[in-house]
């Protein structure tokens, strides 16, 4: 083999390997750039007023997004109430009882539901909850988010239940416990840390969703009493303010974005750290 060819191969090697490293660190840098940019643009707008006041009428500066923060919390509460039990119990079914054909069908539809674009989930919740009563509501938004929570919760629940060693189940059953007692008093408590973390992760994911809320929760510039009125939500406010024409609204969009971004990243950071530590302890 000629010398020139060897030099060519070696330099190609060096160049390509360097490029892969640049790509990896470049993508990671994006995360820090995003975070830094939001802190730079939104940090100075975060004050007491922002968290405690209602939006001011168009044209006036100042005001806050208290109603959007409360609205988001209400929507998340509904999503948790609707989505978490279904995900949890269906996960128990797949890990502990599941037959062959039906378990396959459930798993397959779960994947399918997980892949449905969030805006289509919005249409679904609209035709299910909004269209019959003909007005937008917190309930409809919560239903949309709740449906999105189901597949994520189910997947993590099933995974954590499966990671519980069979000897634990056998031990409980050998002591005379029936199957459901074994599951309720031995298996579920053993997997509870992981399952709860998985639930928190799924809520963190839907907390930032905007598309399914557009025609369910709709948005609102005032407080939304009860559950049957349109409500504001943090991601909706960010969208509405970002596409508006007012500088003061842009400023608040950055601040709201910073709040949402920090909450979602912190929840993910915490959960993933916990999960990683458990993973290491297991192996």
């Amino acid at each position, binding site marked *: 083999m000629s010398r020139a060819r060897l030099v060519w*191969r070696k330099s190609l090697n060096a160049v390509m*390997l360097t490029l*892969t*490293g640049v*790509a*990896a*660190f470049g*993508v*990671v840098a994006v*995360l820090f750039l995003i975070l830094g940019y*939001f802190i730079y643009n939104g940090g100075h707008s975060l004050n007491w007023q922002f968290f405690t006041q209602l939006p001011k009428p168009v044209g006036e500066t100042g005001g806050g997004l208290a109603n959007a923060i409360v609205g988001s919390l209400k929507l998340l509460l509904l999503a948790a109430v609707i989505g978490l039990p*279904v995900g949890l119990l*269906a996960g*128990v*079914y797949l890990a502990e009882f*599941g*037959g062959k054909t*039906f*378990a396959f*069908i459930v798993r397959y*539809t*779960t*994947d*399918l*539901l997980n*892949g449905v*674009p*969030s*805006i*289509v*989930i*919005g*249409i*679904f919740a*609209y*035709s*299910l909850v909004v269209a019959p009563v003909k007005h937008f509501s917190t309930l409809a938004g919560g239903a949309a988010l709740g449906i999105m929570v*189901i597949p994520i919760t*189910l997947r993590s629940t099933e995974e954590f239940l499966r990671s519980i060693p069979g000897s634990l189940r056998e031990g409980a059953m050998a002591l005379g416990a*029936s*199957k*459901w*007692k074994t599951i309720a008093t031995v298996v579920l408590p053993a997997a509870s840390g992981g399952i709860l973390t998985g639930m928190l992760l799924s809520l963190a994911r839907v*907390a*930032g969703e*905007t*598309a399914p809320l*557009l*025609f369910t929760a709709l948005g609102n510039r005032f407080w939304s009493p009860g559950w049957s009125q349109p409500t504001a939500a943090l991601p909706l406010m*960010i*969208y509405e303010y*970002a*596409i508006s024409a007012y500088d003061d609204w*842009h400023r608040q969009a950055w601040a709201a*974005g910073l709040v*949402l971004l920090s909450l*979602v*990243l912190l929840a*993910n*950071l915490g959960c993933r750290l916990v999960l990683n530590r458990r993973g290491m302890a297991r192996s």
Partner: protein
Amino acid sequence: MATSTPFEQTVPPQAGPRAFIQKLRRGDEIAHLITLVFAASIVLITSLLVYELWVNSHLSRAKFGWEFLWTQTWDPVFEQFGALPFIYGTLITSVVSLMIAVPLGLAAAIYLAELAPRKLSDSIAFLIDLLAAVPSVIYGLLGIFVIVPLMRTVIGPALKGAFGYLPIFKGPNYGVGFLTAGIVLAIMVVPFIISVSREVLLTVPREQREAALGMGATRWEATWQVVVPWARSGIAGSVFLALARALGETMAVTMVIGNDPKIRESLFAPGYTIAAVLANEFTEATGDVYLSALIELGLVLFLMTFILNGLARIMIVATERGGGRPS
């Protein structure tokens, strides 16, 4: 079933509700039944979703038939609706995003799986998972205030200077449009390509690399000619997953696409996607046919992502079961 014990079989079969009640007393059947109902509810919800999309798009399907898919008029006033500009916009923005995200994501995945020490690789993968968790409206905000101005002042003029003779880079540059949406989408899907491809690359057996290196291949040649081909169907699966996400992505695209239902060949031109038109017009849809046409667009989008997700899953499973081996 594993739950039926020999004891159960010795009990003579009793007729009527008494046997059922006796069974229920044991509790296992109740627990089984309850979890089964919840599992079945997922199948029910998903079927209901498809049913609602189908039934509520009835008016539009009846009026336009298959022509809905390839006509270009979108006129709410005269109730003439055709989906082609939206399908076109959805596909173009997704393809542009993949052309940027696939090389970048694959390169990063190669670095993480083949070169980086395990600890460094794990921490970078951790940060990339965090990046994947960033909500899409956040990317939309960055798109409007960072990427659109950059497009107008830096990226656009640079591309025009270098490739201005190509039809896809002709025409006025407004900042918003197909290319901008593609760039924003690329940033959003890159984390998915990286984390799935990295997992797939890590499943390639060590011997494959050692054999190539033993034959005198450089590190890059071993990676590019042996490891990547072995994992190719899994990598293709990760690309399909990313594509399915890009097709259905709403907020970030809506904020930078320009919202103009026209088919134009220039990537600088403003366009529209299915998800974006749903986001913008759904609450304002007056008239049943209009709403029905929008829901039919939702149905089209659902089917597109459904097919892609199915293909992606098959490909990832195929690689994990034994790579590019002919067997």
